[in-house]
């Protein structure tokens, strides 16, 4: 749910990075954080375990510019990917405006990707959202790893709705900003469409 403040002329939107454990959600946010001008970002917060696995969420506020005099801010969140943190994932999806599904391209993670995608759909439905109508993009991460599935195969398995999708290597930043820009644009377009209704 976006938030518009007329007095401070701000628009705030929430984007959630979803995907199986160790697929690179936090790495996406870390890359964005490291490569963003200090004026345009807030502090990145990671609620993680001692072994640096996401426990609750990562949070990164980002300002992307002005649109008709309104400062446009995106609040980026990741969910904990590990299966047993499902209760936390549900909470983070509350009020979401757009979703990035980060898939792990490694062949061994094919099942985990599908399971996480099904879990996303179910958890969104519980909050009253439909993945097919929500601004949503897919990122095929870890394209630099050995034993990866061809993109066509991943697309066939995961991108049944034919949403924008991107190859990525989050550790080097390849595809990271392309993914973010794409989902941010979809969110703003959806808000514009909603206003016209």
């Amino acid at each position, binding site marked *: 749910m976006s938030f518009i403040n007329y007095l401070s002329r701000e628009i705030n939107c*929430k984007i959630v990075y979803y995907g199986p454990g160790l697929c690179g959600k936090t790495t996406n946010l870390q890359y964005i954080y490291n490569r963003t001008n200090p004026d345009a970002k807030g502090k990145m917060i990671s609620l993680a375990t001692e072994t640096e696995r996401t426990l609750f969420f990562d949070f990164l506020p980002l300002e992307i510019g*002005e649109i008709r005099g309104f400062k446009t801010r995106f*609040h980026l969140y990741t969910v904990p990917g590990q299966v047993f943190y499902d209760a936390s994932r549900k*909470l*983070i999806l*509350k009020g979401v405006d757009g979703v990035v599904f980060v898939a792990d391209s490694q062949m061994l993670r094919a099942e985990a990707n599908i399971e996480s995608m099904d879990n996303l759909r179910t958890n969104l439905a519980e909050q*009253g959202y439909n993945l097919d109508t929500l601004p949503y993009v897919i990122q095929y991460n870890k394209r630099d790893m050995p034993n990866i599935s061809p993109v066509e195969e991943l697309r066939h398995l995961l991108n049944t709705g034919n949403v924008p999708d991107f190859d990525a290597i989050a550790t080097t930043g390849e595809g990271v900003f392309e993914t973010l820009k794409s989902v941010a644009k979809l969110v703003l377009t959806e808000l514009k469409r909603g206003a016209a209704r």
Partner: protein
Amino acid sequence: MASPQMVMYEEEFAQVQAVTNRLVQDANARVVFVIDKNGQLISASGDTGELDTTSLASLTAGTIAATGGIAELLREQEFATQYHEGVRQNVHIQVVSGRVILVVIFDNRTSLGLVRLRVKRATEHLTRIFEMVMAKAQDPFQSSPFAEITDDDIDNLFND
């Protein structure tokens, strides 16, 4: 969209700000802020200079969401009030009309009893204001800033 968009117009924003300004004084608090349950900061009053209010808003909403999840598992109603006691500072958190969160940060210049008392009155005022805000958000005749935005405006935002 699962929930209506929250739009704060100047009039309601000024009313919220007046309530939080007054609460800072009446409770002798250090900082008071109001955030929505999704972690967006709505207003802040008091000594906010050194505080990272954006992060505080997101983390407070996370706390409320997590305890809300616990309440659901226990088949309990939402835990509407929370209190965190520190060595030098304390945090009082109050959910207002199930929709926004009122946070008071205070130190030993005041007491929990006084903060609770003043929060109660502020909660009543804020409940009325946010009922108006949500009624306006559902009014189809209220204009949204997005109504005037063009596809070109959106494209321009992403031009390198």
